[in-house]
């Protein structure tokens, strides 16, 4: 049990990146994302990185990104979920039915403020229940998740169809539609306040992590490195808010709003959109999922099971129940994604979420989740979703033919995994 490197040589000089303890893999992904953005920006003569397009990109990513965070857990435990797109459709159908027929039938008037929350609750419960059922089949009956969710892909899409008789249902409740993106934003002032709160929280998190390490006598980074990380986080948060705030509500829409209230719009009045509620939802999901992954027993067990299922079992972890929980979380997140997706469209249609399972899996994998299990990050999956969406909408803006768009996205997925494998080999980790 002797450590070969026993003699204590003077520690080698650390590079800047090592001192800052920046995750090189995260850096690589941000770099790839930046390159994608810059290339498209040049090719579209600067139309790609306008506030308007950034805003649209963000709200288009939310639905897939929410599901990708759940897919990280599923893939980390060495499973796969091919049914998320169909599950989204069933949950969406359920919520649409609640809003337009079930709740009004129970005596709630159309436009009642209770309709949206009750419908969302019903949707989340549906998603969680379906997910838990699939998790039970995988965990307790030992049917491979690939098969269970491949079956689910067919089953849930058509359960949704059956529920709605194949009809498109809309328009959805007004309050419900606020979660779709452009229809519901915080406004500029609210966004700045949110941004400042986020900066404070980020700095406090960095500082308390440092204090906890000091309290136990562990080595810490130099203060300037911590300060640099805080400054970087602050710049990123506030920069994002500034861009979203810079996207102006078209004056035609503003005029209509004023007319609706029976007022006239003052000359030169402008208003920025700010942070959409759907993005707020994604941020909340990302924070909660990251905390679950890193700070709770559930998360620890998920990663341990992915790393070595036998060891997890022998350590007294109930890996079967864990599988049920993981799939239930995935189902609930698919339902949450259904809220955003159907609210953005303002109606439910049968083909909602078609092929989303592939986008979600691709986002998680591009984000560094290893299909062999045990590895993956929430922020990586969200970045992966953002990269995928940027590629897709960037190519559409440039005018790439539809078949080529999919060819490129497919090739990028394979390439990303190859780069990931090479990176891991070079790091010698596994």
């Amino acid at each position, binding site marked *: *049990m*002797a*450590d*070969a*490197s*026993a003699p204590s040589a003077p520690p080698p000089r650390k590079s800047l990146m090592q001192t800052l303890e920046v995750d090189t893999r995260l850096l690589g992904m941000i770099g790839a994302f930046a390159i994608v953005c810059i290339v498209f920006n040049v090719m579209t003569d600067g139309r790609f990185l306008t506030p308007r397009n950034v805003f649209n990109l963000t709200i288009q990513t939310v639905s897939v990104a929410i599901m990708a965070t759940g897919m990280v857990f599923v893939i980390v435990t060495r499973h796969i979920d091919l049914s998320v797109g169909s599950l989204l459709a069933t949950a969406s159908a359920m919520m649409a039915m609640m809003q337009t027929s079930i709740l009004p039938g129970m005596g709630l008037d159309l436009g009642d403020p209770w309709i949206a929350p009750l419908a969302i609750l019903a949707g989340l419960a549906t998603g969680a229940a379906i997910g838990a059922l699939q998790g039970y089949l995988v965990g307790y009956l030992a049917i491979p998740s690939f098969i269970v969710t491949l079956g689910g892909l067919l089953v849930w899409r058509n359960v949704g169809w059956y529920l709605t008789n194949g009809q498109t249902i809309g328009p959805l409740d007004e309050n419900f539609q606020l979660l779709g993106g452009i229809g519901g934003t915080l406004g500029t002032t609210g966004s700045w306040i949110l941004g400042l709160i986020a900066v404070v929280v980020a700095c406090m998190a960095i500082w308390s992590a440092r204090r*906890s*390490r000091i*309290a*136990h*006598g*562990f080595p810490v980074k130099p203060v300037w490195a911590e300060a640099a990380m805080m400054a970087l986080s602050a710049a990123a948060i506030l920069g994002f808010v500034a861009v979203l705030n810079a996207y102006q509500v078209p004056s035609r829409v503003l005029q209509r709003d004023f007319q609706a209230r029976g007022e006239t719009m003052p000359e030169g009045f402008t208003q920025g959109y700010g942070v959409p509620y759907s993005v707020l939802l994604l941020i909340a999901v990302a924070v909660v999922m990251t*905390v679950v992954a890193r*700070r*709770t*027993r559930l998360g*620890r*067990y998920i*990663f*341990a*099971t*992915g*790393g*070595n299922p*036998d*060891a*997890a*079992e*022998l*350590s*007294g*972890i109930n890996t079967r129940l864990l599988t049920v929980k993981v799939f239930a979380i995935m189902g609930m997140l698919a339902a949450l994604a259904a809220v955003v997706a159907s609210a953005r469209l303002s109606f439910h249609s049968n083909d909602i979420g078609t092929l989303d399972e592939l986008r979600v899996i691709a986002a998680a994998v591009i984000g560094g989740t290893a299909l062999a299990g*045990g*590895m993956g990050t929430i922020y990586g999956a969200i970045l992966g979703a953002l990269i995928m969406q940027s590629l897709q909408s960037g190519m559409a803006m440039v005018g790439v033919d539809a078949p080529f768009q999919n060819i490129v996205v497919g090739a990028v997925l394979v390439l990303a995994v190859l780069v990931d494998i090479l990176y891991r080999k070079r790091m*010698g*980790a*596994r």
Partner: protein
Amino acid sequence: MVDRSGTPLVELRDIHIAFGGVKAVDGVSVDLFPGEVVGLLGHNGAGKSTLIKCLSGAYRQDSGDVYVKGEKVNIQTPRDARDYNIETIYQTLALADNLDAASNLFLGRELTTSLGFVDDSAMEAETRKIMGRLNPNFRKFASPVSALSGGQRQSVAIARAVYFEAKILIMDEPTAALGPQETQMVAELIQELKKDGLGIFLIDHDVHQVKRLCDRAAVMKNGELVGIVDVDDVSTDDLLGMIIAGKTPDHLAA
């Protein structure tokens, strides 16, 4: 000398386990006293690992009873075994390669903060303490255990058993993957744990090692117990004879 006058720490009585008609363990009884190391010897497939898995909670016996400190116990899962202070160091070490040493040490028994979140700093601090005792050269607290050497991984697995104050320790070929120096450290550790009054079941192939480390040896063949002997009464050849031919040496066969 081990005092065998009191109640045994563990008693396995007439254990039977069959896998689809094949009798993996057929009516085996073994006991273990405090401060004693009992070696389990036998060929591959003799049933020694299967037998011991009834005690660690990985398998359930078809019939037969397990007694801990004279009381009959019902061990259904690894968690039950842990509740009786039975800790197992598996041949495969049962470590999650993607997690660091502290996460592995506390896997299934995480320390938590008052809010119920896992307390990584506290767990790392405890890990540093215990590793300082077992393997003072251990430095790789932040790396996943896949980046550790065989000996370092072994010391994490042992630390896990020692930290939670095992009374009964099961070691399944603890030195199979180790070099001579590391094997020596395991041997020293076993002596130290013996002094603390632990009872240890040591599953091994190597008769020399069993003679050196154990007080008694229980030899199994084809699922049956050949015999339990005091290692000082037998030569390594006698032990080999028991393993291969399945017969107790003449001078002991009363």
